């Protein structure tokens, strides 16, 4: 215990008990200036401390994130990729297309390269790859829908069926329902050009797709007989030629549509012609040219056909504007 010779910290009534703070009015101008400066410095110090605290917090969060990332990078095994698609591609196809090595880790994947690998297939329109921590790769796909098909021969002369999407992309369809594929018309009158490992898109397919879509939705009884759609005169004359099959005595061989006219009206005119010819003409039309605005040229078969049995009740087109058409006979 130390007892110094001079105790300047006495207990009891000591000068140390004297209140040292003075009222603001008792501060001199120099004192006030000094006090304000102290406040500023305290505020600056406080801000600095807060900034330091935030920095420590940020560092801690970053450190923990890095730790999590490091954990992911060093995760033992990548799980099976997950597929989310609006089409028909199976998960196995994605797995095969990605061809991820067994040693791959989630953080080591080159998503851009993998995405390009998926999009290299024509059926995939858009592919989005996301990492789902800790170990899963998620592939979200938007697929193309085929509107037609065509047949080519590979180098060995083996016929190969390809599908064509609305945007003209030619691709091998994977996992489509075969029944659906058989309903697609064939394309003709085109020249396929190689592009990379596949084919260059077919130009003018948008016109074909619109025609087919209109026919499929508005006149399916006509569409189902369409076998071939030729684009041979599309570029030069703006005409689409549709070859049909003779089903149930409809001796129809060729229909010519104009790209410049409304497909809906053209189909209605065709339907009207077929209806009239069945009811009133004893010969069957073999070629209908709908490219004339508001009119049609019909080439009839030279033979007289036997009277066909009454057609089953069905909807049909009226070439007149819908306003004058009886409602009971329209359902589209």
């Amino acid at each position, binding site marked *: 215990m130390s007892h110094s010779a*001079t105790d300047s910290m006495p207990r009891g009534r*000591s000068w140390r008990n004297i209140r040292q703070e*003075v009222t603001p009015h*008792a501060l001199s101008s120099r004192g006030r200036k000094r*006090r304000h400066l102290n406040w500023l410095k305290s505020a600056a110090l406080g801000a600095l401390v807060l900034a330091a605290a935030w920095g420590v917090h940020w560092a801690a969060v970053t450190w923990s994130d890095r730790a999590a990332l490091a954990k992911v990078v060093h995760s033992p095994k990548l799980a099976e990729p997950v597929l989310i698609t609006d089409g028909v591609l199976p998960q196995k196809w994605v797995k095969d297309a990605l061809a991820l090595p067994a040693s791959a880790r989630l953080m080591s994947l080159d998503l851009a390269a993998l995405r390009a690998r998926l999009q290299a297939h024509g059926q995939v329109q858009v592919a989005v790859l996301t990492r789902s921590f800790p170990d899963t790769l998620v592939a979200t796909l938007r697929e193309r829908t085929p509107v037609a098909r065509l047949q080519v021969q590979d180098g060995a002369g083996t016929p190969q069926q390809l599908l064509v999407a609305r945007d003209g992309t030619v691709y091998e369809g994977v996992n489509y329902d075969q029944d659906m594929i058989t309903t697609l018309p064939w394309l003709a009158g085109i020249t396929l050009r190689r592009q990379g490992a596949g084919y260059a898109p077919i130009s003018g397919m948008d016109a074909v797709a619109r025609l087919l879509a209109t026919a499929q939705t508005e006149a399916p009884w006509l569409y189902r007989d369409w076998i071939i759609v030729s684009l041979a005169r599309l570029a030069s004359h703006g005409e689409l030629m549709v070859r049909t099959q003779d089903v149930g005595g409809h001796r129809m061989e060729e229909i010519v549509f104009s790209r410049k006219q409304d497909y809906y009206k053209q189909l209605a005119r065709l339907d009207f012609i077929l209806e009239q010819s069945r009811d009133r003409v004893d010969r069957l039309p073999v070629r209908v040219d709908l490219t004339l605005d508001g009119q049609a040229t019909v080439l009839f078969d030279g033979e007289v056909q036997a009277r066909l049995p009454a057609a089953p009740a069905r909807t049909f087109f009226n070439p007149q504007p819908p306003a004058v058409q009886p409602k009971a006979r329209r359902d589209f």
Partner: protein
Amino acid sequence: MISSSSRIIGAVEIGTGKTVALAGEITRGRSLNIIGVGVAPSRGVMKGEVVDYKAACEAAHQALEMAEKRAGARLEEVWLAQTGGHLDAFYNEASANVKSADNTVTAMDISTVCALAKEKELPAGRTRIHEIRRPFRLDGRAVPDPEHLTGHRLEVGYWIVHGHEGKVSDNIHVVGGYHLEVRELVLSSLASGSLLTSAEERAHGVLVLDIGKGITDYVLYRDGSVAATGTLAVGGDHLTNDIAIGLRITTAQAETLKLRHGRATVQTRDKSEKVWLNGEMSFGDRQVSKLALETIGSARVWELLEVVRKKLGAKFAPEHCGAGVVLTGGTSRLPGIDEAAARVFGLPARRGEAPGWVKDELQNPMFSTVLGVFQFGLRNAHDHVVPVRPKGGLLNSLGRIFA
């Protein structure tokens, strides 16, 4: 450059004539480096007491600001010299029997006897400034530290310095008005004595007289410790007044005359010897008797010293004051004052000289007290009396940046 382990402390003396502020960098609680000096003529202070707060603040803050500017740093706290006619002191001692069975003095015995010796109540309105312990006595023999020694009876005495609470507060508030805290209050006489005398001189016995403009402080050391302290509300101003009255001149003229021709002893024998009042020999200037001037000075100084001797009373004995008398303060520059002191006290007297570590520019006696405040504070800090808090760590370092 201010190091991170140092503190910037101000030592301030609010005197009657001048307010002096020093900025000192204290490193590791031991080493002192004076880095700034500020001096301003005092106003609003009479006989060491604040009578006009605003005027006193103006002068003190001017000195503090000057010291800070010269130091290039902001003061963190202030050690303040305290003087004034209101200060008083008394001696109180106590004794206690050693409690342990083997008569070994324990820390508890020491603590008990110290508490008893300091227990005395002060009159109303008084506040303690210092409690200065004298050496312990164990069975009558003086011992610096009785712990673990063997004995029956332990005695100790304290020299307790106290002052008028309001006047002490006024002094502190002058510093507070500069938005600074007074961390230590040091009696001016102790400060001067601490600086101007060596431990050896204090052991032999020495009397230190700090004669200022309005106040005379004194401290008597015996056997290495403080035997008495005191304050007289008399200083150089009184001498000036007496000269003014005696020679029928203005106070300013008297002050000039005192500084030029004043003496504390009569040296002139020729009654006809004259000195010029203003020294300019211009219109209105006149001659005054040098003998009269010296007689007045001698009488007043003699009287002052006699009063000090009288106040010391039995505590002062020439045979116990081997190191003589040391004079300091502005009035100590009066020629012959050492001779007068030697005659009055019957001891060799000299003007105090600051130690060698004090820079030349601070050798002036007016800096004795503030330098002594530092020295006294540091010594006590070393004795664990002044709490020197460690100032390490990041926050303190940051704080220092903004200080």
